[in-house]
């Protein structure tokens, strides 16, 4: 079926919405990458089987959705309209959940319980993790089966496109996005409307390109994957609206090869949109044409940089080039090109449907809208959280994230990935937005927020990022190529007990040189992990250098393992040791042979009696 006009789409939406509003109960099960890793496929299969064998489909339906964000608790089942949220479900729990959903009752022991207070929640919306968020983008994920365009349309999808095609004024589209104050969600925070205005002004007889950057190379961030997997049509709609506003003729989604489910769902969504006449030639009979293709990346962090990304799309090595000319002037195949990140595109339909003025009320001045963070690391509630700009780190970490997991205190959060920096717990009152983070020596980046506690060594973390950067440096600018390598070597010396105080000055000097003399964003920001840890955690560097001690007990060469009097001789450590470094008779205290020990810590993790000590 092809929809030949705006009216046909509106009509069809009301038919679909009526069908959905039948009041039938529904089980929603997340099949995002994280929940699949936790075993949600098995839950889905058990549910399908039960629904068919018990002939329950008239009374209960099943919706398989993308990521809801609370990945820590997966696999889970959410019931509608009850909104009961069953966590860490097993296949054998499914029949009970179905019975309860049919009877309007609850399976009490499977409901989410707050791990610290023990309080049970009957309604998903009351759970602090969800209650304290403002989910304008992620909320849609739970209502949509991503491979069914019907779901998206029934939930109001493509209404933004309808509005744009009715107004029939590209300038209005760009003005709305400008007025909304949307800034690029990929990291640097460039105003999206301004970028579009520049693209709209470009003259080109060979067409113009729009790109959705779904390379999400920032380790520790996965909101783009979750949007692509869970709601691919929101990206497609955003790009069609963008094309109408800027006069672009072709779109490209550049997506990581590490995200197979996202690629699969996006491929299906593009096909469905074309079949319905929402994408391709003569969209909705309005005479406007635009199509999108998928290009898969092959794993290079530098390809998140826009000129490198363009080269990669052209099938070349992803080396950045000097700007100007900017991609807006000369991009893919020399044609004007505007690149926006996945989350930015997902915001576009929201802005158009709600109106720029309404949208601009969310967040703070100059930083409007919501931002999705991936709250991960040493925190209780790991997952994706969406909050209005301007929320403090403290609110995110404690009210939504639920604070630390064990006894160890939270020490810092790291934002912005390898280009970002660490913010110490003493600054957790900081309101998060593009400007405040950069003043604190970090960046927003794509929204990774990695929480670290006392068991995380900040020198090791800086070394981790520097190793990442030296490997991902494309090698074009020698200050980046050699500078990241040398900074890594110095950090490695410090973590292995070979550091000197002069190293710290050298490290700082190098960091500034690399920052000032490299061409692209990777090099210019590569000093941030070093500079921010030096700024806030200098004492840890000093402990490594002056006392040959790693306070977090992470840096192996500075550690030694021993077995204390708690040992009862259960032999668990000896069996687990991969180098046979542990000796001792059964029921006798064991000993570690330091000459053989590789300090892997396995013995400590298997000991139930706290008998293995590290110092």
């Amino acid at each position: 079926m092809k929809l030949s006009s705006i009216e046909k789409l509106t009509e069809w939406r009301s038919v679909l919405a009526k069908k959905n509003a039948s009041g039938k109960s529904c089980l929603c099960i997340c099949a995002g990458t994280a929940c699949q890793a936790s075993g949600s496929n098995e839950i889905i299969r058990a549910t399908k089987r039960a629904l068919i064998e018990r002939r329950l489909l008239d009374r209960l339906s099943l919706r398989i959705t993308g990521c809801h964000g609370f990945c820590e608790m997966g696999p889970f089942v959410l019931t509608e309209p009850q909104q009961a949220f069953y966590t860490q479900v097993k296949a054998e729990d499914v029949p009970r959940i179905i019975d309860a959903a049919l009877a309007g009752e609850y399976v009490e022991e499977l409901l989410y319980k707050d791990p610290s207070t023990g309080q049970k929640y009957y309604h998903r919306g009351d759970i602090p993790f969800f209650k304290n968020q403002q989910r304008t983008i992620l909320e849609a994920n739970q209502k949509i089966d991503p491979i069914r365009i019907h779901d998206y349309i029934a939930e109001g999808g493509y209404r933004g496109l309808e509005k744009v095609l009715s107004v029939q004024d590209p300038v209005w589209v760009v003005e709305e996005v400008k007025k909304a104050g949307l800034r690029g969600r990929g990291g640097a925070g460039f105003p999206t409307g301004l970028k579009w205005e520049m693209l709209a002004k470009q003259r080109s007889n060979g067409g113009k390109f729009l790109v959705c950057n779904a390379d999400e190379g920032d380790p520790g961030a996965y909101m783009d994957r979750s949007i692509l997997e869970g709601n691919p049509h929101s990206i497609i709609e955003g790009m069609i609206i963008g094309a109408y506003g800027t006069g672009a003729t072709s779109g490209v989604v550049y997506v990581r090869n590490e995200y197979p489910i996202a690629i699969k769902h996006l491929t299906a969504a593009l096909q469905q949109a074309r079949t319905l006449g929402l994408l391709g030639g003569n969209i909705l009979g309005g005479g406007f044409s635009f199509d999108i293709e998928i290009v898969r990346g092959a794993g290079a962090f530098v390809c998140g940089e826009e000129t490198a990304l363009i080269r990669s799309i052209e099938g070349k090595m992803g080396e950045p080039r000097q700007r100007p000319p900017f991609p807006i002037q000369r991009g893919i195949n020399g044609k004007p090109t505007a690149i926006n990140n996945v989350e930015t595109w997902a915001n576009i339909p929201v802005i158009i449907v709600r109106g720029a003025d309404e949208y601009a009320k969310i967040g703070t001045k100059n930083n409007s809208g919501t931002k999705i963070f991936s709250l991960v690391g040493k925190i209780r509630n790991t997952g994706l959280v969406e909050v209005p700009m301007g929320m403090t780190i403290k609110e995110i970490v404690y009210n939504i994230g639920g604070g630390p997991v064990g006894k160890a205190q939270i020490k810092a959060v790291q934002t912005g990935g390898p280009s970002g920096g660490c913010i110490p717990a003493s600054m957790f009152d900081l309101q998060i937005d593009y400007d405040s983070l950069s003043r604190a020596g970090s960046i927003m980046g794509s929204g990774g927020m990695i929480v670290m506690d006392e068991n995380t060594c900040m020198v090791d973390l800086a070394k981790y990022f520097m190793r990442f950067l030296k490997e991902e440096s494309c090698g074009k600018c020698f200050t980046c190529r050699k500078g990241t390598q040398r900074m890594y070597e110095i950090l490695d010396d410090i973590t292995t007990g070979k550091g000197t105080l002069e190293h710290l000055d050298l490290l700082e000097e190098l960091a500034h040189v690399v920052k000032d003399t490299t061409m692209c964003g990777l090099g210019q920001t590569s000093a941030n992990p070093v500079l921010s840890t030096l700024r806030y955690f200098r004492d840890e560097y000093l402990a490594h250098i002056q006392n040959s001690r790693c306070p977090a007990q992470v840096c192996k060469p500075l550690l030694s393992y021993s077995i204390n009097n708690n040992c009862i001789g259960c032999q668990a450590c000896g069996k687990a040791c991969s180098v046979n470094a542990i000796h001792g008779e059964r029921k006798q205290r064991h000993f570690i042979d330091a000459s053989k020990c590789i300090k892997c810590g396995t013995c400590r993790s298997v000991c139930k009696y706290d008998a293995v000590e590290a110092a």
Partner: protein
Amino acid sequence: MKRDGRSYVVAQVDEREVLAVVAKHEAGCGGLIAILEEIQAIYGYLPEQALRQVAQATDRSLVDIYGVSTFYRSFSMQPRGKHRVCVCLGTACHVRGAQSVTEEFEQRLGIQSGETSEDGEFSLETVNCLGACALGPVTVVDGKYVSKVKTSQVRGLLDKARKGYAQSGNGEDKEAFAIAVSCPVCSHSLMDAGFPLDDHPSIHVKVSIDHQEGCLRLSSLYGSGSLASECEIPPGEVAIFRCPHCLAELTGADDCSICQAPMAPMAIVGGGTMHVCLRRGCPGHLLDLQ
């Protein structure tokens, strides 16, 4: 396949296959990278012979091809082992101990990450981020995601891989079950108890391809790909299914989300619709229970 001096498996490259891949991707964006990705999907790595053929077919110098092949992290120029272990080294996994997990794998396998064991059994790789950050440290063993990995689990994971994981992608779809279907047009049952497949009555349809027509029986075990066909359907070809009773064509479902071929709808006894991809060899199917 043959074994070379280093004892792991070197692929025999079929030039026609390589040329077909080049032809498929030459026009669109991404060009060379898409070509190399598909070649790697076929052979598990990028064989030198295939790269030479790509260079010739695309009229580029071998240096260009080599440059792209070595620039991107996901390409490998070395044959990979039978089992693949991939440890995520994203930041979230790192702060939860991914480095120790990697070292434990290296220790147990006696190789460094990026290498393949002498016997060709295991390849150990690391990746910058798999996007499952909430569950770190994450490791993928033969396609199966394992979350919150501890060093003490490593030995067990390797043992399991040697014995073989179910080849079912990410999840453990252990709980197979049979479904019964009928024709969506005439409602006549399509089940054939006289011809069991996987120990269950099979689904019976008429299949036609080119000018041949015959009976096709599909396993009713959900997720199983077993079938028996009277006429030969070459892999990759799209067939047409008809109801053996009313002879109506089974059509009208959405296209396959994997290969975009049409799918055939069948009504499930008990409610809902089953969609089966009509392309031979494609595992695409959809159980629509809304």
